[in-house]
């Protein structure tokens, strides 16, 4: 039985994707420390005196994680310590701390940054973030999000770092494979992990994995990897062909945050997804 680092009875909600994703770290990376900025994972990591994760964990202020990780990495380098420094943060941390992530990438800090994206500021009660899905209802976008969303992984790709990938908690084997690859790469490594949130997206806790898979199958979430060469991941390859994609409506109707979307709005989302695939085509030709 492979070692799992997540202790049962932790504060995560029923069906929480972070808890699933964190498990992958323990399965793939051997020797590592974790840096956690403010977010759901701050709570999931345990309430004193009990800790949830059986690895060294450092809680840090919201916007600071990549900078703190850079410091830890420098300290490890001084001692020739081979431990990986991993940040587990949310899309919220990637908004408030965007300059910090960018600065770290520019320095090519020897760290692994995982943004476990549940598409809103969940820990503070579901407010819209930079990656919130098109038209999604949150407490700060009660009529549905009007703005476009930022493509975090693509932005990090443009920082020209050694490794950028997207992953999903619905495809654990793919995520674990990617982690196993980054384990021994030197420099700034970035993984954007799709993490459907039952209370935030309004679906039954049993559907987390199914919804994560639906996102990939209807083309809304695209699995890819850049390690010097850009490649679509096997699970997303079929959906390059629009005809093979599952019906977007099937994805949207499973989630209460899209309740009441009009036909027109669904068409707009489809167009946005199509545009996203156009970028992928560009990246494939780099």
């Amino acid at each position: 039985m492979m070692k799992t680092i997540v202790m049962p009875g932790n504060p995560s909600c029923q069906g929480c994707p972070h808890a699933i994703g964190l498990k992958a770290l323990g399965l793939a990376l051997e020797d590592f420390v974790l840096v956690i900025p403010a977010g759901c994972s701050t709570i999931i990591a345990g309430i004193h005196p009990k800790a949830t994760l059986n690895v060294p964990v450092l809680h840090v202020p919201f916007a600071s994680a990549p900078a703190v990780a850079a410091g830890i990495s420098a300290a490890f380098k001084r001692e020739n310590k081979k431990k990986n420094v991993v940040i587990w943060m949310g899309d919220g941390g990637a908004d408030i701390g965007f300059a910090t992530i960018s600065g770290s990438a520019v320095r090519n800090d020897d760290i692994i940054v995982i943004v476990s994206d549940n598409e809103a500021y969940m820990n503070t009660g579901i407010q819209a973030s930079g990656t919130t899905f098109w038209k999604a209802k949150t407490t700060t976008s009660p009529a549905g999000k009007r703005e476009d969303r930022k493509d975090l992984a693509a932005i990090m790709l443009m920082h020209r770092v050694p490794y950028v990938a997207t992953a999903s908690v619905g495809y654990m084997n793919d995520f674990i494979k990617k982690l196993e690859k980054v384990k021994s790469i030197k420099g700034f490594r970035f993984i954007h992990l799709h993490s459907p949130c039952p209370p935030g997206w309004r679906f039954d806790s049993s559907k987390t994995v199914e919804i994560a898979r639906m996102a990939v199958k209807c083309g809304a979430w695209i699995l890819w990897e850049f390690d010097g060469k850009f490649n679509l991941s096997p699970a997303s390859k079929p959906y390059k062909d629009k005809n093979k994609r599952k019906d977007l409506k099937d994805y949207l109707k499973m989630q209460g945050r899209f309740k009441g979307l009009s036909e027109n709005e669904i068409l707009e989302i489809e167009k946005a997804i199509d545009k996203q695939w156009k970028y992928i085509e560009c990246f494939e030709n780099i």
Partner: protein
Amino acid sequence: MKTIMTGNQAVAEAVKLSRTEVIAAYPITPQTVIVEKLAEMVDSGELDAEFIRVESEHSALASVYGSAVAGKRSFTATSSHGLLYMYEMVWWVANARVPLVMAVVTRTIGPPWNIHTDHTDILTMRDSGWIISMAENVQEAFDLTLQGFKISEELNLPFTAGMDAFQLSHTSEVVEILDQETADSFLPERRQCYVFGEENTTIGSLAPNECTAKLRKDTFETMLKADKTIDKVSKEYEEITGRNCGLIEEYRIDDAEYAVVMMGAWSGDAKDAIDELRKEGIPIGLLKLRYIRPIPQKRIEKVLEGREILVLDRDCSMGLGGIIGTELKSFMDDITNVIAGIGGVDVGVNELTKLFRKFSEDKLKDEVIFLEVI
């Protein structure tokens, strides 16, 4: 070895001698030269350390927090707006009880944009648990920075070495620096109360309210006793160098009827002003504060007992008074508090002589006086 250096260079030299292993700093006038000098030293191999080129001050303190909590002697420097930008981390580092040293080149806060000195920036740190020191000259800037590493590691509290913008940071003075061997004998290997990364523990989790109360009380009590540690370290340093950089300095105060209390570079000019007035037979002296945290209340009380007191602040707390004046008023009576030199307005020997003379003639009647210019 005696040499000529600016305050910025002297701080960089002290950091090098301390065998600091990780440095992260973001440039801001007038601290920039510290960053540049250290980058030069690392690149040339003169200093064996990691230099993290951060993109902001918040990240500067965050980075050295990371390296410090992971066990390495670490250093950063900033001023004014940079200090305010990293303010969240200032509190986090102290609350985390992580020893490290930061130089603050005191600079006024805008708007309007102004790169000159006053002390309001460094004093924003005073409630946080940081040890806060302020140099009078380049020699003290060097001495305090070096001692800061030892003091910080003994107290498990971060240490600030303050110095005035341009007057110290960019002014060349004669400095006696230590050689590496002497510095090594003074500064032992780094120690801290916990190190991150060795054990499978989680640091800083959400905790019951009592935990926060317990930790803050511990910091409070540490600060109450910190004067003893600073005494001890400054005595050790004095034995090696012949120079004492303790909590306070008394200048011609034994027989003084009038006592001035202040901190920073202008204390040097104050000493000259006092010498002038003494020539005329005016019984005036100076109590210079080298540390504002901890503030040695009993010691200050003892030195100032029975004398007329003028506290000269290069900072202010709006509507209340100078910050140092207000602090002293909390444990002593009958204090005249003058605020001057704000925004770097020039206050030299002539201005101080004029002010101190008025003071000695009992002409400063109001309790708080804000002087744009003297």
